[in-house]
Every structure is written in C-alpha cells, then in structure tokens.
C-alpha cells in the first residue's frame, strides 16, 4: 500500500526539520527493510480482511471464479434469520462460559500454590504447562479416548464411583460441550499458569514480610495482597482467554465435528461448514466478518486496558 507510493517519490522528503531526519538514502532503505514483511502482511492479513468484507456482499461460491454477483446485504439478512447461525453463536458463548472461569481461577490457584512451594518449580511447570505445547490434534485424540463410551477411562471412573450406566460424554448433546471444555481446560491452563507465575515474581517480597509482621494469615495475604497485586495479570488473562474461546475450532472439529447433531457447532466450525462444505463463500465471508468484529472488539478492549494499566503503573 503506502509502501509503494512513498517509496516511489523519495524526492519530496525535504522538510524544515531536515536535520532531524536521515538523508534520502535512509528513506528508501527504511522501506526496503519493511518491504518483505509488508508484502506478507498485505497479502495474508490486511488483504484477506478487506476481501472478506467485500465478498460478504456477493454470492461468491467455490465452484465458480471471482466474487460472483453483488447482492447487497442479502448474506447478512439470511444469516440473521438462520437458526444454525444463532445456535453456533450460542455454542461459542456456551464454550466461553464453560472454559473462561475455571481457566482463570484454577490457573491462579495453581500459580499461587506453586509459588509458595520451596521446591519443585520445574516439576509444576512440567505438569501444568506441557499439555499446552502439544498439538490440538494430539490432545483431542487423548480425550476422545478417555471419553470412550462405556469402556473409557472416564466412564470406568464413574462406574467405580457407583454409576451403573454412565452417560457417554461426547455422545450426549447436553454433555458434549462439557467434554470439550474439560479437554480445553486441561490443555491450555499452563498458559495462564505461566502468566500468573510471572506476575507473582513481580510482587515485592517486602510486602509479604510487612503483612506477616502485621500478623496477616496466609489466607489474608492472598486476599488482600496477592489478588489485588495480580489484577493486571488477571485482566490480561481474562481477555486473552475470551478472545481464544471465541475462535474455538480445533477441539470441536476434532472431538465431535460439531455433533451430536449440531450441539457443539461453534461459530468458526459453522463458518468453515458454510464455506467448504456448502460452497457458499459469500455467506461464509459474511459470518466470518461478524465473528471478526466481535473478536476485534475484545482485542481493542485488551489494548485499551493494557494501555490504561501502563499509564497507571
């Protein structure tokens, strides 16, 4: 974009504050440094975003070339009236509600406890963080196996606990999302755990010593010292977690493919189905754009919150 226009006319770079600027050669060099990255940025980030927005007003399809015919807002009005679209949005929200609170609270607890331990830091990190670096496909295969109906580890544990005929987790519409949420919590908690551990390292030890001298119990120290001091990390963790949950695709695709029925079909799974299974690329672009806007709103909130905290600090 501007890379080309500016690079093409370096002659106009004479300004009143010429002493503050490097010579013309520096101008062109700067753009040469930026050009390779800018190329990929324009082709695979900015370009697709704009293309998606434009395509959402056309009846593009995978089977023919180009954008197709301009149909105005028809894609949007069809979506808004479609039950599948709203149910996919609801499932996304459902997944977010199931995963965000445990992921934030448990990771906080784990980090606070691990930080109190005199030994074993490497072990705790290994136990809680290792799942996070595994491919989603690997963790899904593990959990699908654990959730195997009747003979799987989960069902067997339920039998030990006294249930005669445990309901299959992934095969029951009302339970499937819970199963996906459990796998997700196991998989990604290490990320928040690490962020909280890093936050805990920043709390000055003197504060705890002062609190201890004042006779604060460990529980009071956590409540009145640790939690407030970590509020910055909590905001970050919370918003990152919400953004990640809105984009949920892998675990659903791999564990249930949106089933049973469409009971676990989340927004991005719905979008890929409309686009790649039904070949309705225009409609998929419209749905993508709506999800895109929702996620960007949270991303903006994150940036604003981070900036406000940096100023406050």
């Amino acid at each position, binding site marked *: 974009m501007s890379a080309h226009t500016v690079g093409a006319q370096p002659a106009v770079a004479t300004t009143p504050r010429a002493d503050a600027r490097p010579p013309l050669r520096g*101008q062109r060099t700067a753009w040469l440094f930026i050009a390779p*990255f800018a190329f990929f940025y324009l082709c695979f980030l900015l370009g697709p975003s704009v293309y998606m927005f434009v395509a959402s007003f056309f009846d593009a399809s995978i089977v023919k070339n180009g954008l197709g015919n301009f149909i105005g807002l028809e894609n949007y009005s069809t979506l808004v009236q479609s039950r599948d679209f709203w149910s996919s949005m609801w499932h996304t929200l459902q997944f977010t509600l199931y995963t965000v609170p445990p992921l934030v609270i448990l990771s906080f607890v784990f980090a606070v406890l691990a930080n109190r331990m005199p030994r074993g830091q490497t072990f705790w990190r290994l136990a809680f963080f*290792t799942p996070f670096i595994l491919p989603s496909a690997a963790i899904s295969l593990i959990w699908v196996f654990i959730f195997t109906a009747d003979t799987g580890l989960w069902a067997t544990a339920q039998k030990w606990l006294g249930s005669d005929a445990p309901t299959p987790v992934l095969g029951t519409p009302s339970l499937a999302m819970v199963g996906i949420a459990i796998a997700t919590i196991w*998989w990604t908690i290490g990320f928040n755990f690490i962020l909280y551990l890093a936050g805990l390292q920043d709390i000055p030890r003197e504060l705890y010593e002062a609190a201890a001298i004042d006779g604060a119990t460990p529980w009071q120290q956590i409540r009145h010292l640790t939690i407030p001091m970590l509020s910055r990390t909590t905001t970050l963790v919370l918003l990152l977690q919400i953004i990640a949950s809105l984009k949920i695709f892998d675990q659903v695709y791999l564990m249930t493919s949106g089933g049973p029925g469409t009971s676990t079909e989340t927004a991005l799974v719905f979008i890929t189905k409309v686009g790649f299974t039904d070949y309705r690329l225009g409609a998929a672009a419209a749905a993508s754009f709506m999800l895109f806007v929702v996620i960007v709103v949270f991303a903006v909130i994150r940036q604003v919150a981070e900036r406000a905290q940096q100023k406050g600090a």
Partner: protein
Amino acid sequence: MATTDATGSQARNRRNGVSAAAPAARPSRVATNGGKAFNRITAVVLVVFAVIWLLPSLWAIKTSFTSNAVSALGTQAILEDVNPTLASYSALLGGGDLWNWYLASFITSTLSALLVVVFASMAAFAISRMRFRGRNVVFVLMLAGIMVPADVLIIPIFQMLNTVGLLNTYWAVIFPQVSSVIALFVFKQFFDGLPKELEEAARLDGASNWRIYRSVVMPLSRPVLSAMAIVTFVGVWNNLILPLFVLSNPDLMTIPVGLATVQGSFGQRFSDIQASTILGALPLVILFLIFQRRIVEGVAGTGLKG
C-alpha cells in the same frame, strides 16, 4: 525466566540469614507466618492437581504400549495388562504416513520460523531505528494487525491461495503465517530498549543501516530471536485449521492434519491411535525439554494463545 535460579539463590540467602540484605527485585516468596499447616495443605492440593494433570498423558502412554486387542477391551483390561509391547510403534514407524507428516511439519515450521525472524526483525529495525515518511502509518497498521484474528480469515485466505494456484503446496501453509505481527511487535520493543550508543559509534565509522542491523543489532538480539523462532515453530507445527483446508493431498499433510485422520482410519485400534498421538507430540515435547525457558519466556512475553 529465571524462576528456579532466583529462588534457589534466595533459599541459600535465607539459610545464611542475609535475605533482607539484598532488597533488589527478586521473586516473591511468601513469608512463613502462621503457615505451617497452610503450607502443608498447599503442598497436598498442588500434588493432587499435578497428578490429575499428568494422568491423561500417562494414560495415553500406557495405552500406546498395550496391544490393540487388549486396548479394545477397555480401561480395566489396559490397567491389568502386564505385557507391554512396541507393536503399535513399530507399525507406525514402519509405515510411510507418519514420516510424511513429520517431513511436512518440519519443513513448514522451520521455513516459517526462519522467514518470520528475518522479515519481522528487519521491519522492526526500520520502525524502531529509522525515521522515514509514513512511519506513523506503518505503526498504526502494526497495532491494528495485532488485533486481527488470523484463524477467522481462513475463507478469504483459502480463496486467495486458490486464485494464485498455491493450494496443496507447503507455501500455502508457510506464507500466511509469515505475517506474524506479534513477532514484529516483540522485536520492536526489544530494539527500542537497546542502547543507542553502540549504533552511533558504528554510524560514525561509516556503517550502513544494513551493516548496523546485521553486525550490531542482530548479535545483541539472540535471545529474542531464538525465542520468537521457537514460538513461531511451535505455533506453525500445531496449527490445524490452515493446513486442514489448504492441503488436501495426503502426501503433504502436517502432523495435526494427519492425526485428525487417525480417528477415522484406525477406528477401534486404540493402541495405534495413542501411539500416533505420542509420536505426533514427541518432537515438541523434546523441543520443550531442551528450550523450556525460551518457550515459557516467549509464550509469556507475547501473549500468544492457542
């Protein structure tokens, strides 16, 4: 992260009774006031959770070492099995699929990491160190790019790759992941923090921008370069949605896409499935054990979230 080192030295300090003598920034360790019982409960709770967290992986490992016939019978049979076998592993490693997946994942992850580190650091160097017209526009675009959820762009990216005929090539997996704005941002932050004096000395000696980038800034940036390379490598290695839709040729499948087909093709052969899981995850586990600090640091520093 210097967690372990710092806590170690602190414990030593405390033993010597000099802990208060060095008030400089150091990890907080909770004062042990009124807390013997509390600390014991802490330890028990943490151990219980750690065991719960290790259980699924251990279960997968155990299953992968039983035979398909036994694992098909269910949990009880797997638990009682005392004849570990490498049958699933030798079957998988003897076949060609797994090696193809490894190759595809290795090529795409390595090339992406390389391109990200080179291109993003170059651009970050210009943004951080050079004054030029349009710099503000670049800066705004960079901040905007951080907020763009790349996964949601799968439909237009697919169309774009289709138009230029790159579908079913490794490039279709590599190129879209080169535009890592987060890496650019991390590099810029790092370069901003480097002292200007070194660069100015080089400039007085007549060094060009390229020379300063190559010979002054890059050598100073090794930690951040390797952290970003590893984070990118792991991210590309684990990416499912992009290769899933832009590669349909089984010979080009990456590990996540290959693993996604395992459930369907292996059916009830649970040992084979879990052995695939272990083998698919193994390279990253090894990488993690070697580069634990870098990965943890990189992940914590970038806020990259799967």
